[in-house]
């Protein structure tokens, strides 16, 4: 029963922030590109529920628009990880012990030696900072995550008798990977995808906090915190609300991931019966 509570709470939090991002395309309380120095650094009030920043911009509006950046960066980064990582993992498992397997796995180890921040640093040092570079940096780091996950799961699936039966029926490794292996790792992918999604949001926030992510005027949660750095000692609301937005989004995704795992993992389901 705890499983469904996690799923509901996580789904609710995720839905709230996704909805905020979607609504922001059509409507926000205040235009975030307009500066209003007269209304700068206001504490929360009815007019500005979460206050205003040092340029007089409405923080609630900025958080709504910032959700767009965070979610977009994280989704694309997870997409890169899945699109490139899953086939690599499947291929490595299908030819276990071959040169290809060895190259793929060593390549993965190598990427693991570069935390996404280091990749972002190298990319930024050469190409300059941007949201796209943040996506690439986080995305590259996601590739080995998915490749390893899929390879590990696929290796155990390849020892199943139904795979042997498919081979007896004359099916080749590509077909078997598509028909028998992939459908049986999708649950894992959904769960891991949710987790990487939340890690992506954290990483994007960290990158834009140090100036390696989305650039002005595009609002992002991480940079809102960076801007608040010099002022939050006397205007704490500047730091508290964007931070809470990150915390709650990531928490929501993690809870949802846990809930999905309990729901989808047949091992746990059998144990409950």
């Amino acid at each position, binding site marked *: 029963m*705890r499983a469904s509570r996690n799923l509901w709470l996580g789904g609710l939090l995720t839905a709230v922030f996704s909805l905020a991002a979607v609504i922001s395309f059509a409507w926000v309380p205040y235009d975030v590109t307009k500066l209003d120095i007269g209304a700068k650094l206001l504490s929360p009030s009815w007019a500005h529920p979460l206050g205003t920043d040092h340029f007089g911009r409405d923080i609630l509006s900025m958080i709504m628009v910032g959700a767009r950046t965070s979610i977009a960066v994280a989704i694309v980064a997870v997409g890169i990880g899945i699109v490139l990582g899953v086939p690599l993992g499947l291929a490595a498992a299908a030819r276990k012990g071959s040169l290809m397997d060895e190259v793929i796995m*060593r390549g993965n*180890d*190598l990427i*693991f*030696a*570069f*935390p*996404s*921040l*280091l990749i972002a*640093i*190298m990319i*930024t*040092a*050469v190409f300059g900072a941007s949201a796209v570079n943040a996506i690439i940096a986080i995305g590259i780091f996601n590739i080995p995550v998915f490749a390893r996950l899929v390879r590990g799961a696929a290796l155990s699936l390849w020892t199943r008798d139904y795979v042997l039966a498919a081979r007896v029926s004359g099916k080749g490794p590509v077909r078997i990977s598509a028909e028998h292996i992939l459908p049986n790792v999708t649950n894992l992918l959904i769960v891991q995808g949710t987790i990487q999604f*939340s890690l992506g949001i*954290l990483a994007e*926030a*960290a990158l834009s*906090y*140090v*100036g390696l992510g989305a650039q002005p005027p595009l609002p992002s949660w991480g940079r809102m*915190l960076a801007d*608040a*750095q010099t002022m*939050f*000692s006397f205007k*704490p609301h500047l*730091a*508290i609300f*964007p*931070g809470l937005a*990150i*915390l*709650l989004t*990531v*928490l929501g995704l*993690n*809870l949802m991931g*846990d809930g999905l795992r309990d729901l989808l993992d047949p091992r746990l389901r059998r144990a409950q019966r």
Partner: protein
Amino acid sequence: MLRFVLGRLVSLTLSLFVASVVIFLFVEVVPGDPAAYMLGLNAQEDTLAALREQLGLNGTLLERYWSWVSGMLTGDFGTSYTYRTPVAEMVADRMWISLPLALYALALSTLIAFPVGIWAASKRGSAVDTGIMGLTQLGVAIPNFWFAMLMVLIFAINLRWFSAGGFAGWDAGFWPAMKSLTLPAIALALPQASILARVMRSSLLDTLGEDYIRTARAKGLTRAQALWRHALRNALIPVLTIIGLQFSFLIAGGIIIENVFYLPGLGRMIFQSIAARDLIVVESVVMLLVFAVILVNFAVDIAYAVVDPRLRVRA
């Protein structure tokens, strides 16, 4: 065992080699002419030529790679273009902030996570377990730099227990220096401790379900004895993996946390170099950090073999 260590050493060397090639290609080849990149658009032709000479850009790629790597091996990391000082010197100063910070955080994270994870696992399904799991769920989700800002707000600005930033320096003595690293280390450690505690708990629950735990109980061991004597060491194997991974996150996270606390470590140095387009510094510091990560993973592999006798035979 010796064969195992040797095998791991070979793979360590190989990783370092490939990593150095990747970094070299990325920083020195991808931008085209690094000298032109570093000086910007309006550079004079003769200053460009001088910089090329200084950077050794006139040789072939192979010569340049070799001089970079052989330099690193002998402790010569090149000369910073902006500061006109040897990179090795700059790194040496700052490393004694970044490295202790990462180790401090790693120690904190492990010291918190082990007892908490074990406690939760041994009280599975109880209020204690649910409470701990809820707290770690928050800990995993909290961005460490934001947590750092909150701690500054509470412990430095309101309670005045710590200073809001800066580093006392090791010259000021061990304790003052550690004190200025304490808030940063806690900020770094908390999310990692939460992850580690969760892994510890689930790994322990997995091993507690194994057949050999039932065998141990049939011998007359109590639940707690079976946990401490049989489950714990077996549960450590996946936990070690996470500790290894965490070190690389701590190094990366440290770069950011140094920014919050204005600590003059490698992280600040990297960002200043990026702003100044000082590629030489970026290249060497990134290589150094990657070296640290690979070295830690090597240590984790060895630790595996110490814990698990089945791995010692496999090369």
